[in-house]
């Protein structure tokens, strides 16, 4: 499916990541946004509020983030592509409904423009401290998908990707931006609508009466329906059987949660996007994502100039974590250097997957400012000696 020509803002722009995210959502077909203002994410919805009346869409500023995070599930079940946008404190309030979207297999997109935390923290300064939260912040066991852009251009591109993945896997997908990328303006090229690939919703073709929510599967992902289509579906956050009916037994739970997790894990190869640079001949691989990955290239360049064999592995997809790739590399390289604006959240994952076969060092801070490239270089140098 292609994007809608009348809505896509094709052309060359100079815009910030927040605006690019908005344009990406529009291009992806999003026509329902529920949000609540919070720095540094608000510009996304402010632009939505400007654009929607002219292209046909609903923006509603809800009474809080909780309402926003569930309104998008409602809209999604009505057949809309739906999104909400927030930052740390608001994200913390959305945790219950991330779980609800997971359990009810509701396609929807959560954007978190990360600022420094914990708590109110640094509202206007960047952080990458909500990476583990987006994986683990709701109660219970589940898997999600999260992408992390490092430029306004990618804020556009990956927002579309988020919507597409949400449809493909019927799962909430997270765009984990940060204040730096969100408030940085750069050239953003928006292609013509017919060059933008859009994943449609995968509706069942079974007739009302025949269809029960889990008897029409594409691999591990059930085809769906929307309200008003006559299927008389029952959607619940309780553990449910394959008719969608509540069945609160450990067995049913096991089957359901297992599928919810496997539908992501087993498709990790399809979902995971990595950007690699000179990883093959490297002794040291720098792992980073989001804005940190841009700074990291500077550090890497400095190290290469000193003759060190350093590769770059950039996680465009943060979750699911590229476990296999890290394991492979761990066997071959000497060390990973993880660059991130937090206490080492992804570093823990790298440690876990490298299983002691490669050293793991972090270039870490608690947010507020991106790393000076020198710091990265020094850690690389330190590790190599």
């Amino acid at each position, binding site marked *: 499916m292609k994007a809608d020509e009348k809505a896509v803002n094709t052309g060359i722009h100079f815009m910030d990541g927040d605006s690019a995210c908005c344009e990406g959502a529009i291009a992806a*077909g999003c*026509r*329902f946004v*529920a949000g609540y203002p919070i720095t540094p994410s608000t510009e996304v919805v402010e632009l939505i509020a400007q654009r929607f*009346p*002219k*292209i*046909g*869409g*609903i923006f*509603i500023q*809800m*009474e*809080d983030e*909780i*309402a*926003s995070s*569930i*309104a*998008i*599930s*409602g*809209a*999604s*079940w*009505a*057949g*809309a*592509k*739906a999104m909400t946008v927030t930052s740390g404190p608001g994200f913390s309030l959305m945790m*219950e*409904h991330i779980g*609800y979207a997971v359990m009810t297999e509701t396609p929807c997109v959560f954007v978190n423009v990360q600022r420094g935390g914990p708590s109110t923290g640094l509202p206007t300064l960047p952080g990458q401290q909500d990476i583990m939260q987006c994986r683990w912040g709701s109660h219970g066991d589940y898997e999600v998908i999260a992408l992390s852009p490092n430029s306004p251009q990618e804020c556009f591109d990956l927002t579309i990707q988020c919507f597409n993945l949400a449809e493909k896997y019927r799962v909430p997908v997270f765009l984990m931006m940060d204040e730096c990328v969100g408030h940085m303006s750069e050239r953003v090229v928006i292609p013509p609508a017919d060059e933008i690939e859009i994943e*449609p*919703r995968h509706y069942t073709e079974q007739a*009302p009466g025949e269809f029960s929510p889990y008897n029409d599967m594409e691999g591990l992902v059930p085809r769906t329906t*929307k*309200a*008003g*289509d*006559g*299927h*008389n*579906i*029952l*959607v*619940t*956050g*309780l553990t449910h059987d394959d008719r969608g*009916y*509540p069945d609160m037994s450990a067995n049913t739970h096991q089957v359901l949660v297992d599928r919810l997790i496997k539908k992501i894990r087993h498709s990790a190869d399809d979902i995971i996007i990595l950007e690699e640079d000179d990883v093959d001949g490297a002794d040291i691989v720098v792992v980073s994502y989001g804005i940190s990955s841009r700074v990291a290239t500077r550090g890497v360049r400095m190290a290469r100039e000193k003759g060190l064999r350093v590769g770059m592995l950039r996680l465009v997809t943060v979750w699911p974590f590229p476990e296999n790739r890290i394991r492979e590399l761990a066997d071959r390289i000497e060390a990973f250097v993880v660059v991130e604006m937090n206490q080492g959240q992804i570093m823990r994952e790298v440690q876990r997957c490298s299983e002691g076969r490669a050293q793991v060092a972090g270039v870490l801070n608690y947010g507020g400012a991106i790393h000076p490239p020198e710091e990265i270089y020094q850690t690389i140098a330190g590790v190599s000696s």
Partner: protein
Amino acid sequence: MTESVVTDHTKQETISADQNRVELCEKNPAEDFLRMDRIPHIWCPGCGIGTSVNAFVRALIEAKVDRSKLCVVSGIGCSGRVSGYLNVDAFHTTHGRAIPFATGLKLANPELTVVVYSGDGDLSAIGGNHLVHAARRNIDIKVVCVNNFIYSMTGGQAAPTTPMGTIASTAPYGFCEYALNLPHFVEACGATYIARWTTFHVRQLQKSMQESFAKKGFTFIEVIAPCPTLYGRRNQYRQGVDEMKMFKEVSRREKDIETRDAEIKPGEKIVIGKFVDRERETWLESMQHHYKEVLGDAYYPYTGAMI
């Protein structure tokens, strides 16, 4: 109590091949709207929730609501189980969040008839703020609030609607908070249609529900219902029927009553009736009018957000 007659529409559902004299009628009129494979339901003997569902189903039939466009959304609670027993598009959401879910549903597809059916605790405690703002915005959803004076599902804790002095599991010596007067509260927030009935007043309740389907905007119907298991027993009503008898006795329908005088206090009258029926533009109408006016041709007339 009014005694009303089963109407033609219902009868058609229940009349067998013999057009003249139907001796054996196999199907309860409600069954057609229920997921019969889930009956018997979980509700206790004498629970009023099922009674309210009876009124609801009969109202749906009477009002000829297009079932395929009907969505029922619930939160969590005994009352929140209603959606799951109705054979329509049914959404059993999270505790307190039926209204914002319904808001998303309705706004994304304005053709749907969206009913929120949930409990007093769900809608007025944890979900109170959503009630406020959906009423204020006049989102076109129909709210049915089953008020059994208690959080039942979790074992009978006090709710914002628990009458002062009554016993609850978290108020073992009697509850000492003022109860929220729901009709008054939602009126101050902006609801367009407000009524209160008890489950003893099934027929009037049914009529109010029918009216609410015909009404544009945010409507609110409070259904006072017995919960013998967790409210009644602790408060001198051993069985559901005892609470029903009390409803019959103390309910008063007064002319021109103001919602502010509809507070429920233990041992005092329960004011019932339709309190508010007013016209206000819905959120969507307001948006559409306003944008048409301000943006003229640049406005893209909104019909739905479905892809």
